[in-house]
Structure formats: C-alpha cells, structure tokens
C-alpha cells in the first residue's frame, strides 16, 4: 500500500539563508500515529507547514495521499487537516460558524450532522453559539481541532496539540486521537512531552537541525536503546565494589548504600540471577530491590546529546 505521506529529498532554505530542512526522506503509513520529536527550532513546524501548503519547499517532493502537494494541491490538501501550534482563532465568530467555514473552505458541502458529531466529541456542543473570544485557552484549542476535523480529513497533523493545556484536556485529547486512529485517520503529531509520544505513537521520528536522525517503531526503539536498571538497597554500606564483582556493570551510590546494576533491556535476565548468586557468595545482604526501565525521554535526551557530540 502506498504511504499516506511520502517525503522525498525535501529541503527548505528560508529567504534569509537559514536552512531549516536538509534533504528529508520519510514515509508515513496509513492509519499510524507518528510522533515527530525534536528540540525547539529543529524544523518540526517547517516540515508540517510545507506538507500543508503554508510554506513553499525549496527542493524535493511531498506526496499526500498519493498526490503531489504542489501540482495536485487540491487533492492533497483535501486529505489533510491541520491543527497548528499557535492558538490562532477568529474572535467575533461563533464556534459553529467558524467550524462551518472551515468545512466549506476545504470544499465540502454543509453537513450539520457531521459538525454536530465533531463538536460533541470535543465537548464543544454546548458552546456552539458562543463567540470564540469568550472561550478559555483549552476550549480554543478544541475549536482548532474541530476546524481541522470539519472536512473529514484522512490525515491529521497535530503540531504540539497539548502545549499549555491542563491534564484533563490532555487525557481527553489522547482518547480522541486513539478514536480517530480507529476510524482510519493517519495522525502525525509533534510534541515536547515525550510522555505523550510514549503513550500514543506507533512510530517515532527524531529531527535535529533539520535532519531526521532516527525513525523507528516505538517498541523497537525502546527495546534497542532502552536500558534497565536494578537498584539494590544494602543492609550495610560498602566502601567499594568487591573484586569478585568488578567485571559486572555495577556502580555504587555515593553513600555506599545502593548497588546499581545497568543492563540492556533485550538481554536475558540471566545476568540478574548470576549477580544475585554472586552477592550471596560474597555475603552481601540487601533489604530491598527495584528495577526501572528507561523512558523514551531518557532515550531522546541520550540520542540528541550523542549526535550533537558526534557531529562536532
């Protein structure tokens, strides 16, 4: 099956000479949730803006739903819904009017039943006659999502959808995104909250300085780059790691009360059993133990630091 979004050698140089994107190649399959992670200024929004038609590409090509975004822009853009990062809304229009406007703008005839469903799903139905300026920030964010969904897009871009929204709304949005995916919508989101990508995404792409430095299935990424940690709280503190254990990837906490064993999460658990046996042989007793898996955040921070070091 052809990908929903296919980006080929896409570059962008702004008129000031700043190169925001460097020959990006990326395919996004139908029905997946793809999270694009990257530090501020990495090029996430530029990439999305080009695909959606707001910024002109310098070179390269993008297909959306199989249509070239430049030569077949109508077909390409009809397939796309965009929720931009900034809260850019009208002020004096009512919620209903602005959502109906969006649907028309994207070439669809009026469909009150669909708009009602969208507004109800986003808990906006009661506010449909309110002017947008009278809504809270979270509600405005919902309005922007409703606008993006008004024309039944096949592909939805969410540029930092949960920046500055409260926990409840964030949970609501996650639920909504999952429902959308079930209904067959492809979702591309950028986020600063790595927790969000970890929670939602099927695949993760990391962008840095305008380059995609990694694209991987979330589970594979976490398995491949994830580390596990076993912490042992000792009965009595140690001054140093006993010689018999010196070959193991062990660290001792500063106060000597904790032994920290780091291992690859893909590695078999045999390492732990061996370690515990050895501790028994050495007569080291422990009160408690805990294991912790590194989060996507740790992986991300590690990745961005590692490559920034490598490129220097």
């Amino acid at each position, binding site marked *: 099956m052809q990908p929903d979004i296919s980006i080929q050698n896409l570059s962008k140089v*702004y*008129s000031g000479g700043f190169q925001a994107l460097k020959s990006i190649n990326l395919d996004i399959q139908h029905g997946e949730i793809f999270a694009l992670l990257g530090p501020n200024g990495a090029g996430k929004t530029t990439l999305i803006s080009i695909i*959606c*038609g*707001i*910024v*002109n590409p310098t070179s390269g090509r993008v297909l959306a739903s199989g249509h070239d975004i430049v030569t077949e*822009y*109508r*077909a*390409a*853009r*009809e397939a*796309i819904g*965009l929720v*931009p990062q*900034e809260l*850019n*809304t*009208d*002020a*004096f*229009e009512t919620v209903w*009017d602005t959502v*109906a*406007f*969006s*649907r*028309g*703008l*994207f*070439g*669809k*005839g009026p469909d009150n039943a669909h708009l009602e469903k969208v507004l109800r799903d986003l808990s906006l139905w009661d506010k449909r006659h309110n002017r947008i300026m009278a809504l809270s920030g979270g509600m405005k964010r919902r309005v922007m999502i409703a*606008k993006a969904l008004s024309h039944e897009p096949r592909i939805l871009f969410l540029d930092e959808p949960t920046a500055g929204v409260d926990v409840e709304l964030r949970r609501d949005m996650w639920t909504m995104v999952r429902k959308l995916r079930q209904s067959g919508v492809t979702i591309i989101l950028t986020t600063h909250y790595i927790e969000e990508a970890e929670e939602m995404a099927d695949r993760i792409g990391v962008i840095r300085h305008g380059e995609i430095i990694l694209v991987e299935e979330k589970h594979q990424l976490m398995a491949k780059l994830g580390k596990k940690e076993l912490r042992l709280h000792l009965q009595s503190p140690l001054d140093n790691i006993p010689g018999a254990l010196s070959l193991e990837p062990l660290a001792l906490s500063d106060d000597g009360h904790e032994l920290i064993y780091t291992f690859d999460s893909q590695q078999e658990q045999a390492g732990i059993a061996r370690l515990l046996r050895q501790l028994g042989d050495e007569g080291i007793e422990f009160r408690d133990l805990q294991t912790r898996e590194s989060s996507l955040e740790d992986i991300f921070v590690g990745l961005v630091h590692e490559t920034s070091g490598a490129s220097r």
Partner: protein
Amino acid sequence: MNFHGIRAIYKFEMARMWRTLMQSIASPVISTSLYFVVFGSAIGSRMGAIDGISYGAFIIPGLLMLSLLMQSISNASFGIYMPKFSGTIYEVLSAPVSYLEVVIGYVGAAATKSVILGFVILITARLFVPYSVLHPVWMVSFLVLTSITFSLFGFIIGIWADGFEKLQIVPLMIVTPLTFLGGTFYSIDMLPPIWQTITLFNPVVYLISGFRWAFYGISDIHVGISVAMILLFLTGCMAAIWWIFKTGYRLRS
C-alpha cells in the same frame, strides 16, 4: 472550482459587514450626508449651476465616488489583513482553494458591500438634492466596475501592509486628496489651463468624469477614455495580485 470554498469566504466576509454595520454603512452615509447638507443645500444654493446642473446635483457623482473608493479599499484591505494579523490565514493557505478563488471570495464580498453602500448613498442623496440618472445602465456599470477595481486595490494594500498604520496611509494620504482634486466639487474647465493639463495625471479624474456623464450626460473627458482608464486600472490590479500569489509575496515564505 471549489465553490464551497468561495462561498465560505464570501459568507464569512459578509457576516463581518453585518456585524460592523455602523462602521461599514452608517458612517459613510452620515459623512456623505454632511457634504450634501453643507455643499449641496447650504452653500450650493448660493452657487451657480455648472453646465446647467445645480451645484448640489453636480457633486453627487464625485461624493459617491469618494465613498466607493474609500470603502472598497478599506473593506478589502481589512478583510485580508485581519487573518494575517490574527494568524488565521494559515487555514486559507492550507485549504484546497486556488488564488483565484481566494480573490473572488474576499474581493467579491468587499465589492458587494461597496455596491450596497453606493445605492444607500444614492437614496440618501435624494433626500437632500433632486437629481435624475440619464444612463442608468452605465451608472450601475461604473459603480460595479469601480467597486471591483478598488476592492482589488484594497486587497493588494491589505497584503502589503504589515501594520495598521499602513492600512490607513493609502486611503487617507493618496485617495482622499486625489478625489478632492479630481473634480468632485468643480468642473475641470474651471481650472487655469496649466492645471487642466496637470490634473489629467490624476486617475480619479477619469472615474468621476465618466460617472458624472452617466448621471447627467456631461463630462470633462470623453466617456470612452474613462472606461478605458478603469479597465486599465483593473488589469493592473489583477496583474499585481497574480504576481503576489505567484511569488507568495508576504503570504508564503
């Protein structure tokens, strides 16, 4: 053609007019009425007729033209500047609409408002001054063509402007003086010969002269030249807009 898209933009813009009725209709009507009261009734009664037309009636085409130019420019420039200012322009840029459809939506709505305003002013003028229209079809054609042309011009200003000040500069600093000096209050014959020549460089002269011909059958310049000038200006504006969208000037980086 994305007709739903055109309709959405047009409806949105017209809704804005009904919301701001005081500003878009009432205020130009009041200011034009003041001209009629002062120049038409009060001073006009002491002035002689020009080319057999009473002074009050003589100034109607020029005053109407002044309102049309100002309101067309201000409606259209505001209509496209506001989404740029508030950031909602992202939606129009990301929508499956061609630039032609965007222009038809925004400029069509602005021109519609101007035409409505033109008729409201004509009716209001009747309350102060008796007049008749000799060539009604030509009068309406001039009204519509001028509204469209200057709405296009306003659209260009709205895209060019990067602050509220710039929105006001062109109407106030250029269009108002050109209209006042373009024969609204006098016939060009009344000027000294040297000024008669200089005034021909003022494009508004052609608009007012042609418009007055449609009302009363008298004109400073042959009506054919007036029509040609409007069409020339219309073409110029369309070319500028074509260039704006082709290059993405101040819209797409």
